[in-house]
Each structure stands twice: as structure tokens, then as C-alpha cells.
């Protein structure tokens, strides 16, 4: 079966006065139907810009300079804004971190859902209301019919995020890109949303890209992980395998530095140094300056190399199990 989404060699650069920021610099992955993939990385790793690039939402001075994004076989890079608009929301949609900024405070939730429906073809008011109500029920909003008449400020943070998810699902898209959708929420609400998302992905067959800095959150949802560092995917593979036996030294460091990995009160394993500035990346492997296994070979840039179900971009990866 051909993948729903296929990203090859994607490069998104920002041409600023200070220089070229290579926010995404060679990202490739495939997403199968109904699959949930986690995109993990720290601030500045390029995970959010990757998500935005998939929908063609990168604003100047940012630009996709190279690569291909194929959605259901159609190339999205280089497509006209008009054609992109026809696909956004219908074939691929996005859920953002901050639901307050996503929803328009001036319109009721029902009006906004109806506008989203009308933007891809005419629909009667009654049909729009029925579909909206169906979606609100699906994402777990109590008394959905009454809530259609409510304004965004009348919802709590968790409920607002549910509304945003319902809107993203309105047109049964093949892919949803979710950018840190639970980061602003409390843990008990986050657990509710994670449980809902997992059920929805299974029921609707929608593929999901879940962008997050939190390994634990991603690992509880995604069956496959892609770990990003300095604009590149450094490791990719089945979640359980990566967590149990990370191969890239960065992934190893990231997992080892979690407090849950150490005895209470014992020092945590730390990755030395800080994430590099994307303006002045060293040539070769971007992780080399912080890497315990770096050698002279790391002055060249490692390529993401596939070995069975796993891929790693490192000259000295740990052996797989």
C-alpha cells in the first residue's frame, strides 16, 4: 500500500538579515494510513516548521527551498496557494498548541464549524449543524447541540482543544498534523485528550503526526517515532524499539536525562552543552560538539540510513538489539 504522506529531502530555510536559518534541513519520512507518528525534539529542532511546511503554511522570510511533500500521490511543494487552500482542511489539517489563538472569539463554535464546512463546497445549514454536532459528540463534548451556540471563551482550555480537534476532523482529512496540542493543558486533561485522539485515529482511519517535546506523551500515543535535532531527523523507527534501544547518541541522551530514568535523588545523566544556533551550525554532524562518541569521521554529515524498520543518522550508532 502506498503511504498517505511521503516527505522527501524537505528543506525549509528562513532568509533573515543575520543569515540563512536552516530550520528544516533534509527531513524525509513516510506516513501510512491510520498510523500515528510522533515527531519529537527540543526547541529549535525544526519539528514545528516541519509541520507547517507540510501544509504550506510557512510565511516569508521562510521558504521551502528543496524537497517534496506528496499527499495521496499529489505533490504539494510548488502548488499554487489556491490549490493548497482546496486541500487544507479537506485532505490535511492541523491542530495547534494554543486553542485560544486558533478559534475566532467573535463567532460561536457552531458558526466557525459551519464556515469551515462551507469553505469546501456548499452545504445546507441543517446538514452543517448535524455534522458539527456529530463531531463535537465524537471528541467528547457534553451536550453538543447546546455548545454549538457557545463562544470560545465559554469553553475551558481542554474543551477548546477538543473543539479545535473537531474542526480539524470535519472533512475527514487523511492526515492531521497536531503541534503540541496538549502542552498548554493540565495532566488530567491531557490524558483525556490523548485517550480521545487514540480512539479517533483508530475509528476514522486518519493518520496523525503528533509533534511534541515530551517523549512520554508521544510514546503513549505514537507507534512510530522520528527524533529531530537541528533541523534533521536523527533517528526513526517503532516507538518501543527506540525507547528500549536508542541508537543515536542524542536519543540516548534525551531518554537518559529524564528524571524517571534515574533513582530518586541521584544525579541525572545530562547532555553537555546547549542546542546549537541554527545560524552557525558546525559543518558535519550537528550533534558532534555535544556527543560522547564523536570522532574525526563526524566532520562529514551523516545520512539517515535505514536498517530494517529503523533508521539512524550517525557514524557511530549503538547496535540494534
Amino acid at each position: 500500500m502506498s503511504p498517505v504522506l511521503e516527505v522527501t529531502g524537505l528543506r525549509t530555510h528562513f532568509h533573515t538579515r543575520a543569515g540563512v536559518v536552516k530550520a528544516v534541513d533534509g527531513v524525509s519520512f513516510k506516513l501510512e494510513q491510520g498510523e500515528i507518528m510522533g515527531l519529537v525534539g527540543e526547541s529549535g529542532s525544526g519539528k514545528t516548521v516541519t509541520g507547517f511546511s507540510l501544509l504550506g503554511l510557512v510565511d516569508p522570510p521562510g521558504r521551502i527551498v528543496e524537497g517534496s511533500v506528496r499527499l495521496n500521490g499529489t505533490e504539494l511543494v510548488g502548488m499554487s496557494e489556491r490549490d493548497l487552500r482546496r486541500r487544507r482542511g479537506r485532505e490535511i489539517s492541523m491542530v495547534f498548541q494554543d486553542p485560544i489563538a486558533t478559534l475566532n472569539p467573535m463567532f460561536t463554535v457552531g458558526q466557525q464549524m459551519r464556515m469551515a464546512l462551507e469553505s469546501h463546497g456548499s452545504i445546507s445549514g441543517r446538514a452543517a449543524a448535524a455534522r458539527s454536532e456529530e463531531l463535537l459528540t465524537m471528541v467528547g463534548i457534553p451536550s453538543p447541540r447546546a455548545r454549538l451556540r457557545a463562544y470560545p471563551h465559554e469553553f475551558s482550555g481542554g474543551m477548546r482543544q477538543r473543539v479545535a480537534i473537531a474542526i480539524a476532523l470535519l472533512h475527514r482529512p487523511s492526515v492531521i498534523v497536531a503541534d503540541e496540542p496538549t502542552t498548554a493543558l493540565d495532566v488530567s486533561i491531557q490524558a483525556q485528550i490523548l485517550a480521545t485522539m487514540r480512539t479517533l485515529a483508530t475509528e476514522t482511519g486518519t493518520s496523525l503526526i503528533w509533534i511534541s517535546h515530551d517523549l512520554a506523551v508521544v510514546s503513549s500515543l505514537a507507534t512510530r517515532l522520528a527524533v529531530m535535532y537541528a533541523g534533521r531527523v536523527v533517528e526513526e523507527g517503532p516507538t518501543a524499539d527506540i525507547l528500549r534501544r536508542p541508537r543515536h547518541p542524542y536519543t540516548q541522551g534525551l531518554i537518559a536525562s529524564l528524571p524517571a530514568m534515574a533513582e530518586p535523588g541521584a544525579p541525572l545523566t545530562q547532555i553537555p552543552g546547549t542546542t546549537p544556533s541554527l545560524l552557525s551550525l558546525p559543518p558535519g554532524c550537528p550533534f558532534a560538539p555535544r556527543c560522547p562518541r564523536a570522532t574525526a569521521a563526524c566532520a562529514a554529515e551523516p545520512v539517515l540510513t535505514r536498517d530494517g524498520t529503523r533508521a539512524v543518522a550517525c557514524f557511530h550508532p549503538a547496535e540494534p538489539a
Partner: protein
Amino acid sequence: MTYLTIDHVSRHFAPHLTLGEKIAARLGADVETRAVQAVTDVSVTVPRGRTLGLVGESGCGKSTLGRVISGILPPSTGTVLLDGKPVMTGGNKTTTRVQMVFQDPFASLDPRMKVGEAVAEGPVAHGLTTRAKARDYVAGWFARVGLDPALADRYPHQFSGGQRQRIAIARALAMQPDLLICDEPVASLDVSIQAQIINLFLDLRRDLGLTCVFISHDLSVVRHVCDRMAVMYLGRIVEEGATETVFNDPAHPYTRSLLASVPELVLDADDLVQFVPIEGEVPSPHAPPPGCHFNPRCPFAKDICRTEKPPLKPLTADRFAACHFAEEILAGAAT
């Protein structure tokens, strides 16, 4: 030996109404006139050299309690004692022995003040050092928190988030406090930086013998750094005890659900983790439910929970819980 005593502390916030709002409220308009009970009747003690974790979700009152302990906010009722002496008397702060580290190192440092000056300001004002010796004094603390002392002449925007949090810690410790209150000190940092700051905190706490109150919503961090923890819900402590005891066998239904909601890295299972989310949401602090505040979301709630507030009572030697059925829950007999 008890160092910090929090004795029946409550703190409420009444809305400041303008004349217009008061008139509108009198005429029946929808103006919020009720006070928010941010912290209600909290009593807890921390022995010298120990760390108490305060955990809970947004709006549970953990940050307000932290501010009351530090003396930033006076309590509405109750007292906070340090070594037997009150932190506040008659609204005046009497001690500099409490210092605080805040969540956002971008907001807690003055952008127009060199970081070295920011660290020196307090100690000079309180006579811990002189203006002439301030530079060396600051350099010593910079080295202590793992920063190059030569960076003291820079401004906050020239530092990364992790470095800023180190500066904030240096500023707090330069006051030579006995009690350090950390309000979500690592919440805004990346995972790899978070580990560096936690390690720094563990080192400094040990070397300086600090007593700490560590406020966090991240339960794995709390488990790592705290000897005891208090779980708060809508302004009340619902469970308090030795960290490992609470984690391994929570007695309060809220603690149980909270721990079950935390996504964990599971390394030995091929299947994804199953969540058991808590039903519903935290009620408005303007009108908390009567009886036990957790009763509308509690799977074990009975009639008594809807009418009678459960007191925080000792269960075992090192644990307290505010639940009518805590013993049954611990014994696995609750329904």
C-alpha cells in the same frame, strides 16, 4: 527538627470592583463579586534540610501557597513560621532568609540590568557584602551555579533559558537563604537542559544544606527531588507524605487519578499505555462543590462526601490524607 511551619494558612483574593461595577452588580448585572479561596486552611511542616514538593494542577493554589510562604503575599489567616518566628508580622516582611526562584527566567530578570548587578543588588542592600566587594561576591556565586564569572557584565537577553535559570538561582542563593522556594523552576526548559538544572539544584541543596519547597506540576521531577510531597486540589492539601509512599500507594482518589494520568515511558511493554483519565474538569474556585471538593469527579464518592469536608488525618506514621474513605482505598476495599 522542624524549620518551616505552615499553620492553618488561608489566602483568598477578593475582586477589586470599581464603583461602576459595584452599581452594575447591585442592579443585577453579571459581575463576579465572590472571593476566590486560593488556599484554604493549609497546615504542613518541613524539617531543616528537607525538600517538600507541592503538586497539583493549574489553579490548585500551589503557587499562591509558595508566595505566602516566601512572604510575598500575606496570608488572609494563619501564620508561616521560620525556625519558630513569623515570616510576616503586621504585613511587614521580617526575614530575608527566604528566597524564590520563578518559572520564567525571561520574566524574572530585569532586561535593562546587567545580570551581575541583578545578583549583587540584594546582598549589597542587606549588608551581606559591600559595593566594593560585590564583584568578587557575584563571581563566586556565578562559579557556584556553573556560569563563567566573566558573563556578569552581560544583559539577560544574551543568555539562553537554561543559563538564565542559573542566574536566577545565583540571585536567590547570593542572599544566603535558609529556605529556597522554587516555583516550577524547570517547566520552561528543554529536557536536556532540565536535567542540568535539576543536577545543579541537587548539588547546591546538599552543599548548602538548604530547606526547600519545590512547586511543580511535573510529577516525575517531584519524585526525583523531593523527600515529602503535598498534593493540592482547589486550595486544600488532599494528601501529604513521604514521596515514595505517596507514589507507590496513593491514598486519596485524586492522587490516584493524577498519577494514573501521567504519561510514562514504558520500556518493557509492546503495547501502548492505557490511560484512565479523571472524569470531568476542575470546578470553578469561585464556587467549589460543598463537602469534599473532589466529590463530583470521584469514583468512590458517597453521600457524606457531598456534605462533609474530610479533615487531613494521619493514616500511617509518614502520611496524611483528606478523604473519608482513605483507609478503605488503601486496603483496596473501597467501592
